[in-house]
């Protein structure tokens, strides 16, 4: 059976004028596990969502099970009927419904007008046992752990006769042992039942463990498809892009420079475990890692937006472990939140007001000094080349890159800057803006602040930082001096592979 394609697709898709998929291709053979890899924003999720009918492509060719599909009319209902199941990253079950209720939604079996779920429940249990994914069909979905919920979704998808099963980053939420089990099941599904599996993942060790073929996506295009035998290093190179532009090395930091930020044993629930980290004045330290490995909690713990369960955080030698966010900011911390839309900006307010938000040093303590706010806005707009150069414009009217510049402008212009924590500072931002933002971060370091950059973009960190530490499942698993030569090793650390 294998050797014939279950899915062949060439797809294009844009969001608001921005091309996200530019004729990306994928060909998945029957009865194989096909991995889809690539950097954040490469278009993986977009591609698989189109295949599963969750969103619509702008144009392209789609052949599924030897049937040519009109992409303009391809939706979730049609895809379901055609035997395509999808398990999305964040799950798609309604929490207050039971597993079996979720499973039958839309195609409810009924007897005498009433739901008749017993047969489906039995079938789910039997199927789950058969493929090694035991499930409780009568458990409420929101009472299940993430792993159990995902198993339930997989079993439900197979129950509906999925011949093509799509999983978007299924392992990101699982514990290592669960990952092993899932991967084994997927392999068995492909071998024994002939199911075709497409799995999106960032982790090369998983790719090696489960995949027959690998498609690498970058900037909406398919770079290449690897067939066995797979060569992890080659895949990593293909993911990141062959050659990186030369970037000036940051000026070295004296070994005896004072410590700006020191974390010792910082623990936040299970998301962050025993983090020890120091950043010296003038130093740029990168935190590399795949999204969802504790980056969010790390930034929030330092900024005081989440309480730490154990450990201490010190700023210029003084403990801020229990200080309020406001007190930390007053002592010279600047925090660039990871999501500018939720936590970074007040979209409904003007650029000038956003630049002055919470900045008592600009606005004055009580009565707002309007001329000062305007002058501050003018200065930041000039400095960062914010477009349009209009402080009165609403933040929501700016492009993503310019919005991000507003956040950077507000945070990095704080007086007496001691520490900067920048989370995903250039996510979704165009090249020119990236350069501006990097320039600002370097300038902050040069002026004596310790800068911690958290990014999923390894190249960004290598270009920007002195050192890179790697965050994996809430722990720091390694540290390297940021040189182009270390990229392979760091990439391996990020994906959990042995360097």
């Amino acid at each position: 059976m294998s050797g014939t394609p279950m899915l062949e697709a060439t797809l294009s898709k844009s969001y608001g004028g921005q091309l996200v998929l530019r004729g990306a291709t994928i060909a998945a053979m029957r009865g194989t596990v096909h991995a889809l890899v690539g950097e954040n924003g490469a278009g993986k999720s977009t591609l698989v969502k189109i295949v599963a009918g969750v969103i619509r492509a702008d144009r392209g060719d789609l052949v599924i099970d030897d049937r040519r599909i009109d992409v303009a009319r391809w939706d979730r209902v049609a895809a379901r009927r055609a035997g395509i199941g999808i398990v999305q990253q964040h799950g798609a079950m309604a929490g207050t419904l039971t597993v079996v209720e979720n499973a039958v939604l839309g195609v409810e079996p009924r007897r005498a007008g009433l739901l008749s779920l017993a047969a489906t429940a039995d079938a789910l249990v039997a199927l789950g046992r058969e493929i090694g994914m035991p499930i409780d069909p009568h458990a409420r979905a929101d009472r299940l752990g993430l792993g159990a919920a995902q198993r339930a979704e997989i079993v439900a998808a197979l129950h509906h006769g999925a011949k093509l099963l799509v999983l978007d980053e299924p392992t990101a939420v699982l514990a290592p042992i669960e990952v092993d089990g899932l991967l084994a099941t997927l392999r068995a599904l492909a071998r024994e039942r002939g199911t075709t599996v497409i799995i999106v993942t960032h982790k090369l060790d998983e790719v090696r463990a489960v995949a027959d073929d690998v498609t690498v996506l970058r900037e909406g295009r398919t770079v290449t498809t690897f067939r066995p035998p797979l060569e992890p290093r080659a895949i990593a190179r293909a993911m990141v892009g062959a050659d990186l532009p030369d970037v000036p090395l940051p000026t070295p930091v004296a070994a005896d420079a004072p410590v700006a930020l020191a974390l010792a044993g910082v623990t936040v629930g299970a998301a962050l475990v025993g983090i020890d980290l120091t950043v010296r004045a003038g130093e740029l330290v990168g935190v590399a890692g795949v999204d969802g490995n504790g980056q969010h909690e790390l930034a929030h713990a330092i900024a005081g937006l989440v309480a730490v369960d154990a450990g201490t955080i010190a700023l210029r030698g003084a403990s801020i472990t229990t200080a309020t966010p406001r007190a930390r900011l007053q002592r010279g911390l600047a925090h660039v939140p990871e999501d500018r839309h939720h936590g970074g900006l007040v979209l409904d307010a003007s650029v000038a007001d956003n630049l002055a938000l919470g900045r008592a040093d600009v606005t004055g303590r009580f009565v707002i000094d309007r001329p000062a706010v305007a002058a501050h806005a003018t200065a930041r707009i000039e400095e960062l080349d914010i477009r349009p150069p209009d402080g009165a414009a609403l933040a929501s009217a700016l492009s993503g890159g310019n919005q991000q510049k507003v956040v950077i402008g507000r945070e990095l212009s704080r007086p007496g800057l001691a520490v900067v924590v920048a989370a995903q500072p250039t996510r979704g931002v165009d090249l020119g803006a990236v350069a501006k933002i990097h320039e600002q971060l370097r300038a902050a370091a040069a002026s004596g602040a310790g800068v911690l950059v958290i990014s999923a973009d390894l190249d960004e960190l290598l270009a920007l930082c002195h050192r890179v530490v790697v965050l994996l499942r809430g722990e720091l698993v390694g540290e390297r001096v940021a040189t182009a030569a270390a990229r392979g090793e760091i990439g391996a650390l990020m994906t959990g592979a042995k360097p």
Partner: protein
Amino acid sequence: MISILLSATFGAQILRIAIPYVLAALGGAITERSGVVDLALEAKLLFGAFAAAAVGHATSSPMAGLAAGIAAGALVAGVQIGLALWLAADQVIVGVALNLLALAGTRFLLQLLFDEGSNSPYTPGFGDAVLGNPIAWLALVAAIAVPLALRHTRWGLRLRAAGDRPEALAAVGVSATRTRLFAALVGGALAGAGGAQLSLSVNGFSADMSGGRGYIALAMVILAGWRPAWAAIACVGVALGESLRIYFQVADVAIPRELAPLVPYVLTLVVLVVLGGKRRPPPASLGK
């Protein structure tokens, strides 16, 4: 005293008082479980009461009145959904505004149809015997059927999914908006029947005769954690309280009569405060 409390008339009285609360609460539970904030219960009761009285009067048939009450409740729900879901108006504001409109609107209609400011003319009713009152039967059947339907019918399943995660419904090709519309229509119809009970039981409509019952019913829905059966039981509790108040008065037991009606409100508040976050949460997509 005790013998009175155990008597059949007392029991019948509780049930009679409970009918509008129970129907409104069941309607509210359905609507809210589908994800639509149902502050407009008061409007549904009032318009239901008015329509039942007007049509009952015109046709001399309480059955026709009941049908009109049901239709009026559903109509209010339709307007509510149209404004809140299709036109994307804030659901809370729509509810508040519809209640304001109902208060003035029913009086306006009284003026228009009967040239009266606060009362409609005589309307035949079903009588006080609970067993002979189809609205009582409707309430009883609904109190049993609604929880079962939510659990055991396709309609109920989709409705719950719409309130919880509309995207999950959309993903299987079912329109969440239409699901919510149907849920709200059924919920509105039940509340409208509750309104019909208000006016038919006293043979006529009078202004503001819902008197905050819609708000109490909603409070009971919340208190019950959006479970219709529990909400209905809570409503019977409210009715028990009212009956006791009436009996205490008739039996000349001194209680502060201003404070007794506040008990359901205080109770709701206490439950909200004491249970705080531990309470059963509202449907995940309520109001979105």
